């Protein structure tokens, strides 16, 4: 189970916490002056400050802040329509924030969007699986699209298939796969190319207990290697020292300035 951020120890290895909680750590001033916060923000890896998201005329959320350091995990929860997927797309750079700042290592993400894309894996709620291709072909294709071939790319594909127990079906056309197997194939993309930031939208949907355990193992290994995970889920995914963020609390008041 992920632990709510309020309970996260100041030196928790998760590295993920809300900015407000960080500011309220016991050994720091309760409300530090901005200049005391600033170095901490620059040193952090992924920092979101006061993010707002607008879809059409509707302001989905506003004032969302979080930070995600090396080895950190942040679990997004919230009711349907509270903006979990939008926040993930926003962090992926697929959507532009209506307000607020998103930065990586102190540099705004928008300044080098291609560089930001290169350091993340995004698994949306759709699987991007073609019915007439086999799982192996699918993974080889996405690995090749990710950039120049890395040494050991072929074994990375085999490892990814094995990590999600897809070896037995690796040469079947994907139209024969079940929903859970397609989901596992989408998740296996995470392993064909290393990327420090994983953005997962409902990764456990359609997964059985065994597959979910495999997913948890893979995420744990990714974090142990210094990776970061931002995931939206309704399922209870067991992650040690994960911070939580409930988006319901960031729904804007009815009539804000941002709404025309």
């Amino acid at each position, binding site marked *: 189970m992920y632990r709510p951020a309020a309970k996260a120890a100041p030196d928790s290895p998760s590295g993920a916490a809300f900015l407000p909680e960080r500011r309220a750590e016991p050994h720091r001033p309760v409300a530090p002056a901005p200049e005391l916060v600033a170095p901490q923000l620059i040193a952090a890896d992924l920092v979101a400050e006061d993010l707002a998201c607008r879809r059409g005329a509707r302001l989905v959320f506003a004032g969302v802040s979080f930070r995600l350091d090396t080895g950190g995990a942040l679990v997004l929860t919230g009711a349907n329509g509270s903006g979990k997927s939008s926040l993930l797309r926003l962090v992926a750079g697929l*959507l532009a924030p209506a307000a607020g700042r998103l930065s990586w290592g102190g540099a705004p993400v928008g300044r080098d969007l*291609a560089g930001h894309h290169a350091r993340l894996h995004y698994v949306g709620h*759709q699987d*991007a*699986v073609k019915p007439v*291709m086999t799982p192996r072909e699918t993974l080889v*294709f996405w690995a*090749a*699209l990710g950039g120049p071939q890395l040494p050991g790319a072929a074994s990375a594909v085999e490892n990814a298939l094995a990590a999600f127990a897809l070896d037995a079906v690796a040469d079947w056309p994907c139209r024969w796969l079940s929903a859970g197997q397609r989901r596992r194939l989408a998740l296996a993309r995470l392993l064909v190319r290393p990327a420090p930031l994983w953005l997962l939208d409902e990764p456990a949907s359609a997964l059985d207990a065994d597959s979910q355990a495999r997913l948890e193992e893979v995420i744990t290994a990714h974090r142990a290697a210094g990776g970061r995970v931002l995931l939206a889920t309704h399922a209870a995914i067991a992650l040690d020292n994960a911070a939580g963020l409930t988006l319901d609390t960031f729904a804007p008041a009815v009539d804000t300035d941002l709404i025309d």
Partner: protein
Amino acid sequence: MAALLGLFRRDLRLALRQSGDTALVLGFFVLAVVLFPFGVGPEPQILGRIAAGIVWVAALLAALLSLDRLFQADYEDGGLDLIVLSPVPLELAVLAKCAAHWVATGLPLALASPILALVVDLDARAIPTLVVSLLLGTPALSLIGSVAAALILGARRQGVLLSVLVLPLYVPPLVFGAGAVAASASGTGPRADLLILGALSLGALPLSPWASAAALRLALE
């Protein structure tokens, strides 16, 4: 570059494995042309005079039918997000997809056209010109069509919308493509028309992927 080649090869592989799609496009092409002798009557003089136009219009409509599969599947299954997130510039990714689309539709249409030319009694001297004009013109059809195919993503009544958007843009290739064949049949020489047709395809080569990529980014917003 390897990534682009991979995208091209994947799209081609998808088209080959779903070869029913290509067969349907070709089937439509054949049927549309064959309908004309029934409607206009079998007199060789009348048919021969409009033959170039018939084959070209049928090829346009067949190409139009195949456009929806250019981006729609990737848009629906989330693959387009991943293509946008990949280091491949979206404009070049569009170009790779258009190239695969042309090989899977434009090329078969051009190769099938000599047989259909016989059905509508096209002057035998003009048949090589017909094939060359389709080879030169169909890349423009794929490229120009990609802009509209990207624009309709997420819209309702896509088929109708696509036709309304694309057909006006297909007028220049039609004029010069059919013009080349007619000029060849009448003995005046197709050179000028073919050059302009080639120029249309060359002009669409840099402009269309740029416009399509902008439309795709809009669709994913």
